C-alpha cells in the first residue's frame, strides 16, 4: 500500500497537467485542424517553449529549495547582450562560435552566483535579492548595449544552433537535454536530494551536515546558468542580443514551474511537471494565435489556467492524501 501510493502519488498529481494539455490539444485540433496538428506547428510550439523551458529547469531547483529567482529574465537579457557585443563577436570570429556560448553561460552563472551570495551569505530574502538583481541586470544590459539591438554576424554560431538534426531544431534538442539532465540531477543525485531537503527542512538539513549556504549558492548559480543557456537560444532564434530580451520571462517561468506541481514553499519539485507546465503555456499561445484571437483574451485564459491547474492539483493531492491514510 505504502509502496503503491509512493508511486501513485506523483502520477496522480501529473494527471491534472496531462489532462489540461490534452484538453488544449483537443481544442487546438478542433479549432485549427491540420494547421495545429502538423509537424511544422508542433516544432514551432516546442521551439517557442525552449527558452522558457530551459530557464524553468533551473527555476525548478531554486523553488524546490524554497527560494525564488525573479532575475532570470533580466539575466537572459544581460547575457544575450554581453554575448553579442562587438568584442565578443570579434573573439568568436577569431577563436570560434563557442566564445559566444561561453560568454553567455559565464554571465548567467556569475549573476546567479551573486544572487546566491546575497541569499545564502547575506541572508537576504530571495525575493528581494533577485528583485535587486532584476533591476541591476537590466540597467547594466542597457548600458552595455547602449540601447542598441546587437545583431550577431558569426555564421558558424548559426550553423551550429540553427541546425536541425533529425528534423528537429537544435534549440529544441537543447531543451530536451537540459530537461533530462535536470530530471537526473534532481532525482538521482545527492545534489538533487539535498535540494529537496534544504527546501523541506533547512534546519534538519544543516544538522545532517549539508552545507546549506554553499548549496544555496550553487542553486542560484544553476538558475543563472540556465538563464545563460536561455540567452544562447534566444540569440540563435532572434539573431540578435538585446537588453529587452527576457522581459517578464520570470513570471512565465515561475508560473510554469508552480503549475507543474513544484511547491512554491519548497520541499517538493518535479521536472516532469515543469516540462508539462511549459508546454501547456506555449500550446495555449499557439492555439490562440492559430485562431487569430486577441492577446487580451489570451491573458485572461492564462490567468484561468493558472487558477484551474493549481486548484486541480490540490484536488488530486487531497484525493491522494485520503487514499494513503
Amino acid at each position, binding site marked *: 500500500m505504502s509502496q503503491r*501510493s509512493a508511486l501513485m502519488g506523483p502520477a496522480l498529481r501529473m494527471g491534472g497537467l496531462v489532462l489540461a494539455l490534452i484538453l488544449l490539444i483537443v481544442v487546438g485540433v478542433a479549432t485549427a485542424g491540420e494547421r495545429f496538428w502538423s509537424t511544422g506547428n508542433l516544432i514551432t510550439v516546442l521551439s517557442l517553449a525552449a527558452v522558457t523551458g530551459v530557464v524553468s529547469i533551473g527555476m525548478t531547483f531554486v523553488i524546490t529549495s524554497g527560494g525564488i529567482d525573479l532575475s532570470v529574465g533580466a539575466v537572459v537579457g544581460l547575457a544575450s547582450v554581453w554575448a553579442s557585443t562587438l568584442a565578443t563577436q570579434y573573439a568568436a570570429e577569431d577563436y570560434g562560435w563557442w566564445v559566444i556560448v561561453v560568454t553567455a553561460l559565464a554571465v548567467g552563472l556569475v549573476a546567479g552566483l551573486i544572487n546566491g551570495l546575497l541569499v545564502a551569505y547575506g541572508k537576504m530574502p530571495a525575493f528581494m535579492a533577485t528583485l535587486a538583481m532584476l533591476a541591476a541586470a537590466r540597467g547594466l544590459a542597457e548600458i552595455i548595449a547602449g540601447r542598441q539591438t546587437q545583431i550577431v554576424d558569426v555564421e558558424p554560431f548559426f550553423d551550429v544552433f540553427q541546425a536541425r538534426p533529425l528534423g528537429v531544431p537544435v534549440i529544441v534538442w537543447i531543451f530536451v537535454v537540459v530537461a533530462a539532465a535536470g530530471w537526473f540531477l534532481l532525482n538521482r543525485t*545527492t545534489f538533487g*536530494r*539535498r535540494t529537496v531537503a534544504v527546501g523541506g*527542512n533547512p534546519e534538519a538539513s544543516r544538522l*545532517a551536515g549539508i552545507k546549506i549556504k554553499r548549496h544555496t549558492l550553487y542553486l542560484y548559480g544553476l538558475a543563472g546558468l540556465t538563464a545563460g543557456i536561455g540567452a544562447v537560444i534566444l540569440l540563435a532564434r532572434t539573431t540578435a542580443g538585446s537588453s529587452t530580451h527576457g522581459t517578464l520571462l520570470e513570471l512565465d517561468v515561475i508560473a510554469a514551474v508552480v503549475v507543474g506541481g513544484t511547491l512554491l514553499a519548497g*520541499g517538493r519539485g518535479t521536472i516532469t511537471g515543469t516540462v508539462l507546465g511549459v508546454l501547456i503555456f506555449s500550446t495555449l499561445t499557439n492555439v490562440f494565435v492559430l485562431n487569430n484571437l486577441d492577446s487580451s483574451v489570451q491573458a485572461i485564459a492564462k490567468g484561468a489556467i493558472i487558477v484551474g491547474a493549481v486548484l486541480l492539483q490540490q484536488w488530486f493531492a487531497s484525493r491522494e492524501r485520503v487514499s494513503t491514510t
Partner: protein
Amino acid sequence: MVDADPQPTEQPAQQPLLRMRGIVKEFPGARALDGVDLEVRPGEVHCLLGQNGAGKSTLIKTLAGAHQPTAGEILIDEQQVTIANPVAALRLGIATIYQELDVVDGLTVAENIYLGHELATGGVTRRSEAARNTRKILDRLGHKEISPHREVGSLPAAGKQIVQLARALSRDARVVIMDEPSAVLDSEEVGNLHRIVRELTADGVAVVYISHRLEEIRQLGDRITVLKDGRTVAQSLVVADTPTKELIQLMTGRSVEYAFPDRPGVAEDADPVLQVEGLGLGDVFADVSLTVRAGEIVGLAGLVGSGRSEILETIYGARRATSGTVRVGGKRLRSGVDAAVSAGIGLCPEERKSQGLLLDEPVYRNITLSTFSRIARGGLLDEGAERAAAREQVEALDLRPAGVDRHARTLSGGNQQKALLARWLVHGCRVLLLDEPTRGVDVGARSEIYNLIRRLADDGAAVIVVSSEIPEVLGLADRVLVISDGKAVHEGPAREIDEHAVLDLVMEGSVA
C-alpha cells in the same frame, strides 16, 4: 554522597570516551551554559537530567557541532577537539537525535536516513543499496513494515522518530545522543527503543540520553549528570545508588511531591457540559461517543497514532467531522474552530511551537490570542488590559521569567506550555481539551500543571486530557477512555483500571 564526592571512583581504570569541561555558551540574551562538565564512558547510558531550560539541549547541540561553545573544552579519547559544524561531529563519531523531529517530509525514508552522507558514486545516488541498508536498519529497529521508499511526510510522529533513530544508527557512531527520544513514543515503542539502546551499549557505543521521565532513567541509565541553570550540579551519579527524591532535589533545588492532586469526585447530578455522539473522521476514527460533566476530567489513553489528537481536534472543529455531533451545554455546535471557541471550548495543541505559539510575539499577546478581541473595545485594542490579564496568569502559574513583554521564543518548553494554558485561563473555558500537556515538561512544572488542571475542573470546567503516559492519564483523570485504532475500546472510572489493563486493551484492540 553527592555533596561529598561527585566523582564516582568505582571504575577508575576506564578511560572516558568523551569529556566536556567548563562549557560556557552565551546567546545574545542568555547565558545558557555556565560551566558544564560531563564525562561519558564507552558502553554506558549516560543520562542528562534537568528542568526545562536547564541547558540540556544546548549542551548536546554544542557537542553535535550545531552550536559553538563560548568557552570550555571538549575531549575525545582524552584528545582535545573542536567541533566546528555538524559534519565534524559526525566525523568524530557523534550522532545526534534532536528534540525536534528533524526529518524532511518530502524525502523517502531511505533518503532521510542517508541525508548528508548519501551512498553515492560521483554524486549519483546508489538507490538500491541505500534501500537495502535501510531495510536492514529498520529490521533491527523492529520496524520491518516501513518501506524505505515511503515518503516520510506520510509517517506519524512515532514513525518519524524511528527514522531519526535509524539515521543515527546508519552513522556507525561511537556516541549516540538522544534528546527526549521517548517524548513522542508510546510505551510499546519506548520498550523497543530501550532494547535498541541496550544493543548499542553492548557494542560499546555510549548513549547520552535525555528524558524527563524519571522511571525511564531508572530502567535504562547507568549514570546521571544533573544540570541546573546551566551548571553541572552533580556529575556521573550512579543510577542505582541515587534515589529519585534526591534527583528531584538536585534538579529543582527543592523537594517536589511527584503526586497527583486529589480527586474530589464528580457529583452525580453535575451537568453534562460536553456531549459527543457518534463522532467520526473519515477512516481515522469512528463512532466516538463521550460525555464530560462539569468538574470532570476525562482521560484518553492509547498508543501514539491511535487517533486521540484527531479526536480532540475534531471535537474542537479544527477538522471537519464526517459523522456525529458535538454539543456544549446541550447546544449543538456548528463546525469551525471559531464556533467552538465562542461556545467556550479551548484546545492546547500537541505541537506547542507549530500549533500554539506566535514565537516572535510577546508573551502577553500569546496569552491573549483568543481573547484580545473580547478585551478590545469596538475593535480598538486595549493592550493595558491585555498585559494586566496576562500578568495575573503569569503570576498565578509561576511562569518564568515573569516579564510579559518577552518573546515567547525565549521561554523554555515548560514555560511555553504554561503560557498556552494561561491563554485559556484568561479566556475562561467550559470545556478544555489538553493534548499532551506535559510533554517535555520537567517534574516540577509537571505537578504544577496537574494541580492547575484539577483546579480548573474543580471550578466547573469539563476537561479532556490526552497523554501518552498512561500513569499520568490514570492518575489525573476521573474517567478513562481507551482508544485503539480509532475506536473507543473501553470506558470507565480511572481508579478501576491499571496500566497493564490499559495496555492489554490497547493490544487487543489493535489486533482486532
